[in-house]
């Protein structure tokens, strides 16, 4: 390499290095902006939850409160109604997750591994149920459940939540079952395995990641629902979302610090589950995305 070429090469390297550095700075700055945009509301929730009431709307706003208090968190655990709402939320969300998993597992397996008349039409019919705004069906479902005499019960909430989680749960599990080779099932049949054995001892254990992510999706759906829980559940079976609104929002005022503290407490179970189950969730959501 001539000296001229070496110098030119060196110059190009220096320019390339500078360009790389600039790209990294711009990329980093963009990422920071996105992170701030995404996490600032949560940070503000946390700050509000430890701020005294008279400082909540202080102007100019403070990024960190001068006086910190944990009384709003104490208030949550000292309120027996909120504890009841929390229990109701756990019961209903867990039952919704289990119910959705059971039905969607069999339905997903059926759609994936069997061929029969009307299969496609049925699959699209189930998917089209997702297109209905849930609030649109509220009045109809209310009157229907009322005539069945199951209002103000856990059952009515589990049934209504499961109705709206099933379409996506079925499709998620169907997509996962699609990735399982048919040869696995054939081999099991050759070995004399019954349909029951194939499903419960071969396929479902392999589908664990998808089952976990599907179950979690259904759990969160039941945990976060507001309008159905408010309308169908009644005072004794009320879950957290309507319970928090009922407790902390009024005709004239909203107790924002209480609401923020309670919202953070209520979010914790889901956050903890996500942290511990994230590898299953990622695997389950990505199933079927890549062939082979």
């Amino acid at each position, binding site marked *: 390499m001539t000296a001229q070429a070496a110098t030119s090469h060196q110059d190009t390297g220096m320019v390339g290095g500078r360009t790389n550095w600039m790209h990294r700075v711009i990329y980093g700055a963009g990422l920071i902006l996105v992170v701030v945009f995404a996490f600032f509301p949560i940070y503000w929730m946390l700050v509000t939850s430890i701020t005294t009431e008279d400082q909540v709307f202080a102007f100019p706003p403070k990024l960190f409160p001068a006086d910190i208090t944990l009384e709003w968190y104490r208030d949550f655990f000292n309120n027996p109604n909120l504890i009841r709402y929390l229990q109701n939320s756990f019961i209903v969300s867990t039952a919704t997750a289990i119910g959705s998993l059971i039905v969607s597992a069999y339905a997903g397996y059926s759609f994936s591994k069997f061929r029969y008349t009307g299969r496609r039409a049925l699959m699209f019919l189930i998917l089209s149920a997702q297109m209905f705004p849930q609030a649109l069906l509220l009045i109809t479902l209310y009157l229907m459940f009322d005539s069945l005499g199951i209002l103000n019960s856990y059952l009515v909430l589990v049934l209504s939540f499961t109705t709206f989680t099933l379409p996506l749960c079925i499709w998620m599990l169907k997509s996962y079952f699609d990735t399982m080779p048919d040869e696995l099932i054939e081999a099991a049949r050759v070995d004399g395995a019954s349909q029951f054995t194939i499903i419960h001892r071969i396929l479902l254990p392999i589908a664990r990641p998808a089952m976990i992510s599907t179950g979690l999706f259904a759990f969160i759906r039941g945990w976060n629902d507001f309008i159905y829980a408010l309308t169908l559940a009644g005072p004794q079976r009320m879950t957290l979302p*309507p319970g928090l609104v009922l407790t902390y929002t009024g005709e004239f005022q909203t107790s924002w610090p209480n609401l923020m503290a309670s919202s953070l407490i209520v979010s914790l179970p889901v956050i903890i589950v996500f942290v511990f189950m994230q590898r299953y969730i990622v695997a389950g959501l990505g199933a079927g995305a890549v062939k082979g």
Partner: protein
Amino acid sequence: MKKQGIFAVGFLLLALVALSLMPVMAQDDEAQDFTFTGWSLNEGATRDVIMLAVDEFATANDVSISDVAYPYNEYLNQVILQARGGNLTGLVQMDVAWMAPLASLGVLEDLSPYIEEGVYAEASLASCQVDGVQYGIPWTTASIGMVANQELLEAAGITEIPTTIAEFEVALEALRAYDTDIIPYAAMTDVAQLKDIIPWIWTFGGTVINEDGEVVLNDEGTIAAVEWYADLLERGLIAADIDRFDARQLFAQGRVGFYEDAIVARALAAGSKPEDLELTVVPVPRPVLDEGDDPQALFWGHCLAVVAGDEAQTAAEFALYLTADETPTTRYFEQLSLPPTNLAFLESEAFQGDEYVAGWTSLITATARPNPFWPYAEAARMEAILGEQVQAAMIGRSSAQDAMDEAAEDIDDLLN
């Protein structure tokens, strides 16, 4: 012998019929358990005051009163849904604005047989009527009126409360000149709250809906009011996108000169203001166009409605106890500062001695009028149409005339 036998059988049958009727007859006089539905039943101090009255009545009458609460913002939807499903029973707390939609379902009891003459103020009774039928017993009646921050006004050199629009504009300019960070008048400019322009429409001589039920939103007075409101925004005397929650917080921080709220404004400001801030809340009659005009305001209040059924009588008696009996009425007023509706208490020293409440009642509520949209089941949609078109005029997307022409047409289509 045969005749005696027939007589005996007949007597026995008669006795059996009489015995079977006895529980029904007794039921008519006996107090019945009932449900009390309301949004105040779950709100902090309000709940304590109400539940004390519930317990007293339940104990005295040997009945059980179950309470059901829904959040205020979802209350009307829930109550209507429960009524449609036949699950709404007993006593129901209602905002005066919501009486018509619930009454239209045909589930409410006419309470006029229960109300004695001379117990309640006529205006209060009228606020709980729909098409002339007394579907509610008034629990509290006041108005949405204007309040001022006395310290801020004095600091800005405003020595007298403005009574005319011309004086009001001078006061607003003075506040703006005193401190540009202050909102001189935190008028409702958020679309959802723009129904607050209705009293200004009345002030400028507009009608909204005339006696024949015709929508006249595009008359001269309405156009003048909308143009004036838009002018205030342009001059920086009001701010954009302000709703009542925003205005309350800003007022409590001492950053607003005037704003409009229900009579609870004083209590809300006291609860939200910084400890070191001096803040005296003064009720202000709405400025008028010309001297001698009546100040305009919208009625505000709560009614107690009773769902027709077996428990209606007991529920109605409880409603009368809550609103006319001295003990619960006094407690409700002293602890919540909500004005009562029974004449005896309104004339009492306890009520007249509270300058703020008595002043509000005589200066603002005395000339208040019901929202012209309330008699209609589509009231919420009508208010939304008005709000959208007023906003269009305020941001310059439409002239005031075009906006109000469109509002009048849309509301007319809704009603016909």
